[in-house]
C-alpha cells in the first residue's frame, strides 16, 4: 500500500482575519504534505492556528477570515480555486473532519440515523433504506453495539465516547481519502481517549486514509503519528518524524511542550506549562515570536526572525540556536 505521491499538499498557507483592529495572522506560512495511509500530527498550544489550518483546507473560513496566500493541493488540484459547489462535493466525501467536542458537534435535535443518512445520501446515490443499511454497518465498524437500535437515538442519549465513535462513523461514511481529526480526544476521559485513538489507528489500517491529527498533547502524537509539525503563533517551528522529535527535539518551544506531557507513572507531578502567553497575532514582536517566553533566548532572537531551516534530512526547525555552530553549544542534550 506504500504510495509516495502526497494526497494533500499545503504550500505556504496564510490565513488572516481582517478585523477592524488589524489583520490577525492566524496561519502565517504553513507548508506540509501527507501521503495516503500516513498520520501527520499538528501540535501546538491553544490559539496557535491548528484549527484554522484545518478549516482552510476545508475552505470553511468565513469573513472576516480569508486565505490570503498559498496553495492547498488535493490530488494535485488547488482547493483555493474551487467553487463552493465543488467544495461541497469534496467535504465529507474526499476530506472529512471530526471535532473536539462530540457533544456539541452533533446536532442535538436530530437522531443519529438522520445525521448519518443525510451525509451518505449527500454523496452517494443510495435510497433511504440502503443508506440506513450503510449507517448500521458503519456504527458496527466503529464498535457501537446494537447499531440498528442505536440509530434511533438522539446524541444526548449517547455517552461521550459513543458520540465520538458516531462522529467517526459519519466522517468515514464515504471512505474519505483524508480525515482531519481536530483534537478528537481532548474532551474525553483518559481511558476513552485511548480507545478512540486505537479505533482510528485500526480504521486507518483497514481503509487506508491519511489522517491529520490535530492535538495540543504530545502524548497523542507519540501514540499515533508518523510525522509531526509543531506550530507556534501561526507558524510551523519544527517539523520532523515522530522518532526524531522524541529523541532529539530542537525547538525550545517543543521542549516546553514535552515538559507538559502528563506522566502516567507520576500522576501528582505538576505539569510544567510554558510560562507566559502567546503573542498578539495582530502585532507580532520583532524577531522570533517565541523569544519572550524562551529560556534560551539570545539578544539576536529579539532582532532577527529565524527562517524555517532544514537541519537534517527530515528535520526542519525555526530557531536561531541552529543558525551557527557557536549557538548550538547552549543546546541541552
Amino acid at each position, binding site marked *: 500500500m506504500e504510495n509516495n505521491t502526497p494526497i494533500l499538499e499545503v504550500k505556504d498557507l496564510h490565513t488572516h482575519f481582517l478585523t477592524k483592529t488589524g489583520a490577525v495572522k492566524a496561519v502565517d506560512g504553513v507548508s506540509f504534505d501527507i501521503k495516503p495511509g500516513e498520520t501527520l500530527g499538528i501540535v501546538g498550544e491553544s490559539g496557535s492556528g491548528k484549527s484554522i489550518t484545518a478549516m482552510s483546507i476545508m475552505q470553511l473560513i468565513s469573513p472576516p477570515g480569508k486565505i490570503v496566500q498559498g496553495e492547498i493541493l488535493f490530488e494535485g488540484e488547488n482547493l483555493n480555486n474551487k467553487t463552493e459547489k465543488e*467544495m461541497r*462535493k469534496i467535504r*465529507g466525501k474526499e476530506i472529512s*473532519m471530526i*471535532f473536539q*467536542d462530540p457533544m456539541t458537534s452533533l*446536532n*442535538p435535535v*436530530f437522531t443519529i440515523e438522520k445525521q448519518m443518512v443525510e451525509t451518505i445520501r449527500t454523496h452517494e446515490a443510495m435510497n433511504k433504506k440502503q443508506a440506513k443499511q450503510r449507517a448500521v454497518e458503519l456504527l458496527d465498524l466503529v464498535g457501537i453495539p446494537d447499531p440498528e437500535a442505536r440509530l434511533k437515538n438522539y446524541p444526548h442519549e449517547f455517552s461521550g465516547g459513543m458520540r465520538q465513535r458516531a462522529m467517526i462513523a*459519519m466522517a468515514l461514511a464515504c471512505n474519505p481519502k483524508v480525515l482531519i481529526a481536530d483534537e478528537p480526544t481532548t474532551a474525553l476521559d483518559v481511558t476513552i481517549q485511548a480507545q478512540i485513538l486505537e479505533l482510528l489507528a485500526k480504521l486507518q489500517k483497514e481503509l487506508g486514509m491519511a489522517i491529520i491529527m490535530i492535538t495540543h498533547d504530545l502524548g497523542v502524537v507519540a501514540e499515533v503519528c508518523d510525522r509531526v509539525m509543531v506550530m507556534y503563533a501561526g507558524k510551523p517551528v519544527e517539523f520532523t518524524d515522530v522518532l526524531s522529535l522524541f529523541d532529539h527535539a530542537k525547538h525550545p518551544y517543543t521542549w516546553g511542550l514535552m515538559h507538559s506531557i502528563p506522566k502516567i507513572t507520576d500522576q501528582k507531578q505538576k505539569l510544567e506549562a510554558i510560562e507566559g502567553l502567546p503573542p498578539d497575532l495582530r502585532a507580532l514582536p520583532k524577531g522570533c515570536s517565541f523569544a519572550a517566553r524562551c529560556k534560551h533566548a539570545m539578544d539576536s532572537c529579539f532582532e532577527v526572525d529565524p527562517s524555517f531551516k532544514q537541519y537534517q534530512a527530515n528535520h526542519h526547525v525555526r530557531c536561531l540556536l541552529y543558525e551557527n555552530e557557536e549557538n548550538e553549544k547552549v543546546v541541552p542534550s
Partner: protein
Amino acid sequence: MFSYIIKRILMLIPVLIGVSILTFSLIHLIPGDPAKSMLGEKANEAQLEALRAEMGLNDPLYSQYGTYVAKILQGDLGESVQSKESIATEVADRLPATIELALFAMVLAIIVGVLAGVIAAVKQYSWFDNISMTGALFGVSMPIFWLGLMMIWLFSVQLNILPASGRLSNDIQLGLITNFYLIDSILTLNWPAFKDAFLHLLMPGIALGTIPMAIIARMTRSSMLEVMKQDYIRTANAKGLASYLVIFQHALKNAFLPVLTVIGLQFGLLLGGAVLTETIFSWPGIGRYVLNAVLGRDYPVVQSTILIIAAIFVIVNLVTDLLYKFFDPRIKYD
C-alpha cells in the same frame, strides 16, 4: 407523553376556576346597582327587579356563583342584556371569525417573520438585514389603528383592490360547515368564495399580524445568529450538506425554540389586538362583540367572552408547551 397531556388538561381546571371567580366577581365590582347600570337611568323599578331576579342578583353570593358555574358547565352562558339572545349562540357565530382572523394573521406573521429573520441572520449586515430589521423596529411599535386606516385608504379607497370590511362580499354565497370561511369554501369546493374570503382576510390579517411578525423576525434573527456559531453547524458544513439544508434544517430547528415561546405569547396578545382590528375592519368577531358589550354595559356578555378568551389563552399555552418537544427531543415531560 399521553399522560402528560392528560395531566396538563387536568391542571387547566384550577386555572379556569380562578378565571371564573374573576369574571363572576366582575359584575359585583360594578359600583352601585348592576341592574341599574345595565338598563340605564330611565329603567323603572319593575324592569330593574325583573333583571335582578333573572340574573339571580338577590341570592346570596355563594349560590349565585354555584348557579353561574353550573350553567357554564351545561354550556349555558346566559343571555345578552342588549339583544336578549343566548350568548352561547352569539359567541358560536362570532368566535370562528376571530379565530380564523387570528390564525391567518399568525400564519402570515410566522411565515414572513421567520423567513425574514433567517435571511437577515444568514446575510448579517447586508442591505436586506438592515432594511428588514429597521422595518421590524417600526413594526414592533406600529399602531394597529393607524396602519389599518392607512391600508383602507390606500387599497380600498384609492386603488379599490381590497375590500374594507366584513368577511365576505354580499354577492358571494357560501354554505357554512365550520364557520371558518376559508375551510368551508375548500370543503364545498367553492373557489370564488375562497378567493373572496381570502381577500377579506388580507388587510385585517396584515394589521393584526404586523407586530407579531416584527417580533418574530427579530427573535428569529438573533436566535439564528447564535445557532449558526454552534459546532454542529460547522459539522453540517464539513459534511458537504447543501447550504439550504444547513440553514433551514440544522440551524432553524434549533433556533426555533425561543421563537416558539414568542409565538405562544404573541398569540395571546393577538386576541387582544383583535378588538381594535375587528372594529376598524367591521369584522364580525368576538373582539367587536366584547367591545360593544363593554360600551353597552352588557355584563353577562363581557363575563362570558372573557372566560372564553381566557380558556383559549390557556389552550394555546398548552399547545405551545407540547410543540417544544417536537423541536427539542431533549425536553422531558413528567
